[in-house]
């Protein structure tokens, strides 16, 4: 007997197919952007800010050496004095969400808490991607409209 401990959450985070009544419906993992700016705790905020803005983002996910989410740098944090480290400027311990959460639920939570974006992580806290609120809301509308 074998235990696939990372389970359905890990399977869906990898974008692998599923079966069932909700198979193919969008989730946090399917809508989250995978190519997002990341930095480590020791990087200077000035460097991070330049890199993030050059990439057209206003948010950076701070991760440790294992890719575990440690904090977020949103516009307010990125605008701080550039001489500090990302680790000292970040908002530590942000709410993270699992990849299998239905996109309708994600859109509701993000609207209720006025969150512009949220990290989607494995149960161990490893970054999968960043879910942007506009993307979540668009995905809900498209899902409700059904296939064209």
């Amino acid at each position, binding site marked *: *007997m*074998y*235990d*696939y*401990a*990372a*389970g*359905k*959450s*890990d*399977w*869906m985070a*990898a974008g*692998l*197919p*599923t*079966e*069932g*009544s*909700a*198979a193919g419906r969008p989730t946090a993992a399917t809508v989250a952007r995978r190519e997002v700016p990341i930095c480590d705790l020791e990087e200077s905020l000035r460097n991070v800010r330049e890199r993030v803005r050059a990439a057209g983002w206003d948010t950076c996910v701070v991760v440790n050496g294992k890719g575990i989410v440690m904090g977020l740098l949103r516009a307010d944090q990125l605008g701080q004095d550039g001489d500090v480290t990302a680790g000292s400027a970040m908002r530590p311990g942000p709410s993270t969400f*699992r990849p*299998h959460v239905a996109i309708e639920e994600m859109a509701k939570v993000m609207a209720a808490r006025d969150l512009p974006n949220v990290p989607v992580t*494995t*149960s*161990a806290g490893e970054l999968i991607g960043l879910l942007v609120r506009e993307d979540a809301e668009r995905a809900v509308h498209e899902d409700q409209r059904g296939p064209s």
Partner: protein
Amino acid sequence: MPTEIGRADAQQLVAKGAQLVEVLPKEEFDERHLPGAIHIPLRKIDAGVRASLAPERPVVVYCWDSA
């Protein structure tokens, strides 16, 4: 005790004929499960469950994650 495995091993075992078993509640299984998985809720796993599994094939169990 079951042997803990990762995604690649799970895929390889299933490709070789292992049986996938989801132990989450029925509603969650019905909504979404791994291709080919069967449903045996955790509370019903006991000696009697052997009847629904082929004894000669390995079994891979899973739930949402390890949290």
